[in-house]
């Protein structure tokens, strides 16, 4: 099911006589000046076919020094953290703090459809590369800025990493166990959410540009992106003045036909953990199954037909939950999952990454794509989570730092070899 594509991720505009366009966005060019906070935006645009150039400072993006690394060997071309954010991009190096570098960036921006950046608010303006200047050169440009808190306001100058944003965005408070401190969701989730919001925003602005001919600015803050994850606690406070607490993975039930009332939905089993879905904990088939196994304990023989778990007293719920948990402990993840599927009881294996990469559903859709990465060999990357009937996507590999300097500066901007050498000598490229 793997569909490896050409190693050189060159994409030509339609009609230019080159390779056929791939993905729905193959007609567009993106300049990506962002760091990890914003790189997921252009990754998605690139995976959908756009011609993305990652503009790195000389020596490469600092994220290239963030682990984990391929075979645990720290090396700027082996950062798995960088890889995950930078598929389907090309790379040039450019020092935009130097006047010659600023001039080159303007020439690139003149030809770009989108520009994405995640510098502190005001930094691009201070270099003469803010939206006001760039839109004079290219009025069609859509420029997206990803910042921790937004370009203005009392916290706009605050520093942030992901854990700070998960805290300020309301996510940490509602994540974790009630008897432990608030918890960060693993991975730099605020950066990923902001990147996706920025990609959506770029395309909204693009559709507007298609009718007006003019671009605009798109601002995404990590905090606001996180606030969408906690729309449930926000509406609870707004309507009922109730502060949602943290209690594991479970989410609160409604009064009728709503959601689960299970206190915790993660249960230990024989070979790991299972997650009992609130949708699948249908008591009738579950207890029939348990009784057939002689594992319904003292609850055997009880009729579950008219029992609404959600309205039972808490002690009774706990008692029932205890018996169910005992049943799960006697079985493997696979037994519970496969047998549960037959019976309409959704008890899914709690998959670690090893289980995810082997899960047959993903393979059947060709979701992971194997890409040959220089210095590393073939790696299976998660792709785009959607199939397109007409404009299928395929992943390009992450670039080496400055890998496309020559083809960009000479091939696209028309610099001579001598000019490029001079820029390299001056440390601009």
């Amino acid at each position, binding site marked *: 099911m793997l569909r490896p594509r050409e190693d050189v991720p060159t994409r030509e505009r339609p009609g230019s006589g080159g390779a056929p366009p791939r*993905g*729905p966005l193959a007609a567009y060019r993106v300049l990506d000046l962002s760091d990890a906070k914003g790189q997921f935006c252009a990754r998605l645009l690139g995976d959908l076919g756009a011609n993305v150039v990652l503009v790195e400072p000389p020596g490469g993006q600092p994220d290239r020094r*963030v682990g*984990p690394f391929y075979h645990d060997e720290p090396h700027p071309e082996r950062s*798995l953290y960088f*890889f*995950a954010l930078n598929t389907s991009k090309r790379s040039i190096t450019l020092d935009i703090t130097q006047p010659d570098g600023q001039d080159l960036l303007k020439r690139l921006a003149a030809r770009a459809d989108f520009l994405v950046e995640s510098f502190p608010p005001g930094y691009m303006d201070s270099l003469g590369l803010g939206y006001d200047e760039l839109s004079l050169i290219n009025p069609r440009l859509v420029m997206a800025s990803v910042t921790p808190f*937004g370009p203005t*306001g009392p*916290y706009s100058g*605050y*520093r942030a*990493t992901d*854990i*700070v944003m998960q*805290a300020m*965005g*309301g996510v*940490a*408070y509602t*994540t*974790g166990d009630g008897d432990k*401190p608030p918890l*960060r*969701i693993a*991975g730099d989730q605020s950066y*990923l959410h902001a990147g*996706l919001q*920025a990609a*959506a925003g*770029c*395309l*909204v602005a693009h559709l507007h540009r298609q009718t007006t001919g003019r671009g605009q*600015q798109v601002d995404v803050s990590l905090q*606001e992106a996180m606030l*969408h994850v*906690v*729309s*449930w606690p*926000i*509406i*609870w*406070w707004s309507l*009922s003045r109730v502060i949602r607490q943290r209690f*594991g993975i479970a*989410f609160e039930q409604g*009064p*009728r036909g*709503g959601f689960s009332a299970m206190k915790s939905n993660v249960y230990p089993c024989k070979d790991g*953990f299972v*997650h009992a*879905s609130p949708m699948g904990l249908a008591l009738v088939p579950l207890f029939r199954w348990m009784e057939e196994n002689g594992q319904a304990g003292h609850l055997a023989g009880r009729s579950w037909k008219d029992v609404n778990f959600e309205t039972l007293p808490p002690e009774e719920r706990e008692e029932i939950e205890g018996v169910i948990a005992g049943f799960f402990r006697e079985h493997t993840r696979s037994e519970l999952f496969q047998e549960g599927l037959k019976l309409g009881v*959704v008890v899914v294996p709690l998959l*670690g*990454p*090893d289980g*995810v*990469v082997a*899960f047959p*559903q993903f393979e059947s859709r060709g979701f992971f794509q194997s890409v040959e990465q220089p210095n590393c060999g073939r790696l299976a990357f998660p792709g785009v989570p959607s199939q397109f009937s007409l404009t299928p996507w395929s992943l390009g590999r992450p670039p080496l730092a400055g890998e496309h300097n020559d083809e960009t500066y000479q091939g696209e901007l028309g610099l001579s070899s001598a000019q490029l050498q001079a820029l390299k000598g001056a440390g601009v490229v």
Partner: protein
Amino acid sequence: MASSGAMPLSGIRVVEFTWVAAGPATSKLLANYGAQVIKVESTRHVDRARWAGSFRNHEANPNASGAYLRINDSKMCVTLDLRHPRGLALAKSLATQADIVVENLAPGALKRLGLGYDALRQLRPDVIMMSLSLLGQAGPYASMAGFGDTGQTLSGMTYLTGWPGRPPVGHAGPYTDFFVMPLAVALILAALDHRQRTGQGQYLDLSQTEAGVLAAGTAMLEQAANSRSPQRMGNRHPYYAPHGIYRCRGEDRWCAIAVTSDQEWQALVAVMGQPSWTVEARFATALARWRHRDDLDRLLESWTCLYTPRELMARLQAAGVPAGAVQDAQDIFTDPQVAHIGHLQEVNHGEAGTHCVQPPAYRLSETPARISSPAPCLGEHNAHVFRELLGISAGEYAELLRDNVLS
């Protein structure tokens, strides 16, 4: 519904057959930038978010459920009995007058009703249709039922999130619903742009669990490259220390602090007033601090617990140390930055009263998002949609009502 003016998605009509979270939230974000969104429901099988609460004063009412109100603003709602041939015909008429159809029912459900992509494209060749599901429309487990919490677990995110030595925790609730939502918007708009240039529609089959796998992307590459899963590490970081969520003054009050450089460490030490423990050799370098992070966290917390989260954040940020109060819902409503960006927008709903809804997190300088109306009541727009938009006569409309087709 008011005219859409010059919004980016003006003139785009979306018809949705959706329920619960990811589907409705996706089309809401389209509505906030000017798309006309018509949500098709049925009184027999209402969107179960209408019963999920929260309800003001605990008064259950399908028109006033928070789970619904938060992600269905700026839309119209019609009710149709899809088991009735005329109800089905009306649904088909609506769908074929749409530019975009969004659905997140069980895989195959719309197809069985004759409303699948192949049927719709016969009538509307350039329609764009997105099916958003737990695991995709086909494949060995495609028919499995589940919410975004199941998606979270099958994507690896639950496994990765938690404390060392304890069972995995995951995020509270259907995490992949929220991760997939802006992604779904981007994919739909990419298809819409393609259609505007080529005249061709297409079908998008989106799996929210796969979206969750993207959220765990680095861990997937670590598995592929090094045959190893990262372990749960709570709030700790593989390189940085101190890095965590620290107890503050008050009940269940906390502040996140992340020190990522020597400079930030020195700034933190200065804010603390240079207590003697900070000059010990075991905290002298970044590596030493990381190795002694248990002691470091304990000592740091003996200082953080003297302050409220916002006091601490302000003092640390003034010195250049990344820090942020752990905000609960009430805190979000009093956060001056949230107020500054206008994230919580009040609407007045006829049955639910005044409440807040959230605009998209992408802010466009020339064409700001708008919340044009609160979430609709069940069938609120039947007359408008069927009489005005589909042009049904008064007599025929009365018959539809009489025969319970609009229910």
